[in-house]
C-alpha cells in the first residue's frame, strides 16, 4: 500500500515540479536544518534545566515561557519543510526504515513536550517537587531529540524500497 501511495505521490504534478527545480530540495533542507537548530537548542535548554545542570537561576515557568513558543513555531516549520521534502522524493523517505524510526521518535518527543508543558501549566512547581520525574523526562527527551537528528541524517544512507 505504501508502495502504491509513494508511486502516486511521485507522479503528482507538485512532486514533479519539486524534482524539476534543482534548488528546491537543497533550499528546503537548509530551512529544515536551521529550524532543527532552533528546536534542538530550545529543547536542550529546557531538558538540561529539568535535569538541573543549566539555567538553575531561572524558574522553569520562565524558561518554558522563553523557549516553548520557539519550539512549537519551529516544529510547524519543520513539518512544512519536511512535507515538501517527502513530496519531492517520496520513495527516499516513505519506504525508509530510518524515516519511520525518526517519525516515531518525533511523535514520542512531542507527546513528552506537551506533557511537560501541560503539567507545568497546571502546577508551576510540579517538576520542582517531582525531581525524579523531572530528571527522567529531561534525559529521555534530550536522548529522543538526539535520536531524531541522528535518524534524520541516516535517512540518506539507508537503502529504500
Amino acid at each position, binding site marked *: 500500500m505504501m508502495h502504491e501511495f509513494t508511486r502516486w505521490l511521485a507522479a503528482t504534478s507538485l512532486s514533479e515540479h519539486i524534482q524539476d527545480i534543482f534548488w528546491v530540495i537543497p533550499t528546503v533542507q*537548509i530551512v529544515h536544518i536551521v529550524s532543527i537548530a532552533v528546536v534542538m*537548542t530550545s529543547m536542550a535548554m529546557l531538558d538540561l534545566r529539568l535535569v538541573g545542570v543549566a*539555567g538553575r537561576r531561572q524558574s522553569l515557568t520562565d524558561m518554558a515561557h522563553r523557549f516553548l513558543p520557539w519550539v512549537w513555531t519551529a516544529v510547524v516549520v519543520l513539518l512544512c519543510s519536511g512535507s515538501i521534502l517527502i513530496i519531492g522524493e517520496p520513495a527516499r523517505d516513505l519506504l525508509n526504515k530510518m524515516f519511520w524510526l525518526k517519525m516515531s521518535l518525533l511523535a514520542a518527543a512531542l507527546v513528552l513536550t506537551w506533557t511537560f508543558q501541560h503539567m507545568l501549566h497546571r502546577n508551576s512547581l510540579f517538576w520542582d517537587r517531582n525531581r525524579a520525574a523531572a530528571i527522567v523526562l529531561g534525559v529521555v527527551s534530550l536522548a529522543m531529540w538526539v535520536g531524531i537528528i541522528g535518524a534524520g541524517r541516516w535517512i*540518506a*544512507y539507508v537503502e529504500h524500497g
Partner: protein
Amino acid sequence: MIKQLLQALEATPWGTAVRENTWLFPTIESIHVLSLVTVVGSIMIVDLRLLNLASRQRSVKDLTDDVLPWTWTAFVSAAITGTLLFSSSAVRYSGIWQFEVKMCLLVLAAINMGIFHLGVFRSVAQWNEAPARPPLAARVAGGVSLIIWVIIVALGRWVGFE
C-alpha cells in the same frame, strides 16, 4: 605544497578510515550535525537577546553564562568531526567553492565575536538588564553573527550536494 598537505591528510589513518568504512562517515556526520545545530542554535539565543528580540527579561550576562559553555563544547565537537570528514577527501572538499566560503565565514564570525567581546561586551553591566536596550554595537554584532551562521549552515549543506 598545499596539495601535498591535503594528500597527506587523506593518507592519515583517520582520513583513510572515514573514507573506506561505510558506516563511519554517516556516524561522524550525524555527530557533526548534532554539534552544529547546538552551536548555531545557542548562538541564535545570544544573538536574538542582543537584538532585543528574545529573552528580554533575562540579563545578558546570566544568559551568556548559561549558554556559551554549551556553544563552546559543541563547537569543539563540530571542529573535530568536521576535520575528520574533511580528511576523508581533503583534496576534493578544498576545491569546492561553498566549502572555501564557509571557512572564510567561520573566520569572519570569529572576528565579529572578538570585536564584540573585546569591545561593547566589556561594559555589559551598563546594559545588562531590561528595560535597557543593548547598544548599537551589540545589536550589530548580534545581527551580523545571526546572518553569518545561517549562511555557514547553508553552505555546509550545499557542500554535500556538490
